[in-house]
């Protein structure tokens, strides 16, 4: 287990951190993001996706819950699954989404509002918490379990 804390000064900085993080991911990696509304979860996901060579526009999947993007990792193609659980109130609904196929497959799974489904997250995962320091500054804590 390792934990590191970084401060970013702009959305661009948060994106850059996402690009750095993407280099540590492997097929099957799960990244759990938590933090309040506007703390930069989607921005960080955009950075990770950019690092994974996703060319599609990465937007907030709040209404559709899951977006899927084709990406690239070490010269081979990889699916990136982008969950946004903002609207989820009941874990029953999450179970019905068929989450196991995403979490335990060969793709890379990025989950916003992951705290809502903590008990379903795989033991081996990246845990990222974002905090608002000021208008543009964010504290981002990254744990690898």
């Amino acid at each position, binding site marked *: 287990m390792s934990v590191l804390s970084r401060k970013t000064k702009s959305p661009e900085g948060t994106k850059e951190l996402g690009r750095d993080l993407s280099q540590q991911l492997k097929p099957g990696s799960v990244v759990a993001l938590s933090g309040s509304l506007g703390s930069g979860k989607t921005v960080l996901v955009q950075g990770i996706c950019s690092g994974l060579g996703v060319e599609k526009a990465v937007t907030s999947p709040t209404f559709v819950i899951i977006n899927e993007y084709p990406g690239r990792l070490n010269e081979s193609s990889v699916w990136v699954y982008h969950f946004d659980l903002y609207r989820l109130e009941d874990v029953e609904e999450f179970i019905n989404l068929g989450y196991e196929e995403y979490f335990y497959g060969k793709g890379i799974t990025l989950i916003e509002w992951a705290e809502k489904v903590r008990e379903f997250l795989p033991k081996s995962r990246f845990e990222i918490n974002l905090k608002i320091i000021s*208008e543009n500054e964010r504290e981002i804590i990254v744990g690898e379990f």
Partner: protein
Amino acid sequence: MLILGIETSCDETASSVVEDGSRILSNVVYSQIVHNRYGGVVPELASREHIRSIVPVVRAALDEAGVSLEQIEGIAVTYGPGLVGSLLIGLSFAKALSFSRGIPLIGINHIEGHIFANFLEHPDISPPLVCLVISGGHSTVVYVADKGQYELMGQTRDDAAGEAFDKVAKVLNLGYPGGPAIDRASTRGDADFFKFPRARLEAESFDFSFSGLKTAVAIFVSKLSEEELKKHRIDIAASFQEAVVDVLVEKGIRACQKKNSDKIVLAGGVAGNRRLREKLRSEAEKLKLQVFYPSPVLCTDNAAMIAAAGEFYLSRKKRSDLALNAVPYAPLSSA
């Protein structure tokens, strides 16, 4: 031509019978109020509700129109974009009905349906025109060169406009759906109370970004005491709405100028926003642009707009086959 429309892309089960693409014989929309409780749409609940309601809703659409299935000359159904589980219910139902009754089938893009809501309500509008499609899931600027001929000029890079409305309404505790709640609250609020940021992006871009605005409101609210929030809730709502409307109007009008179009039309749930309509009208008037928008019932998700778009294609002998599948991120494409 009598067309039966079916729409189940999100949380509304809708069916409608439209004659010749312009006369609405019935327009049944069953809204899943169950989501109120959750402050948003829950996909699995949505698709289970669609299964329950699809048959009664289609039957009601036929009954209200006073027509039988034998008279229906075509079935138009939304194939995407939307929630895949929800889309599949309407799509599978439409395919089965088409196959068993031998009625021609056409799959319609939900965004194109919203654009057609304008042609349905105002049959005299003729393209070219610029359309702003703005709803809970979409914020797009589309140049409509002709019916069926589209150019995507811009879209959101993060949150859709309606999504920002919903999230801000939740931060302000104004209820769900957030769009109408903020619209109502804003009429009594001071839109100049606070100048929230307007994300205009690059000078030439027609893309939107509403995530920063949402963040600005969340941070602003977090700094207020409960008393201050209570006192200024409607002012914050009005100031937020003004920021969204400013950007939508500015980009829409600039898109018209770029394309040399003299018409701008609104579509999608957010097109029902009163301040947006008012501001667009007054800005467009200065430039002698014509403004159109559908009545509120045709702005939000409905099947009449799908039937209208379906009539356009079916009357031109276009058909979908039974391999038609649901496409959650279906892009708007030209015929």
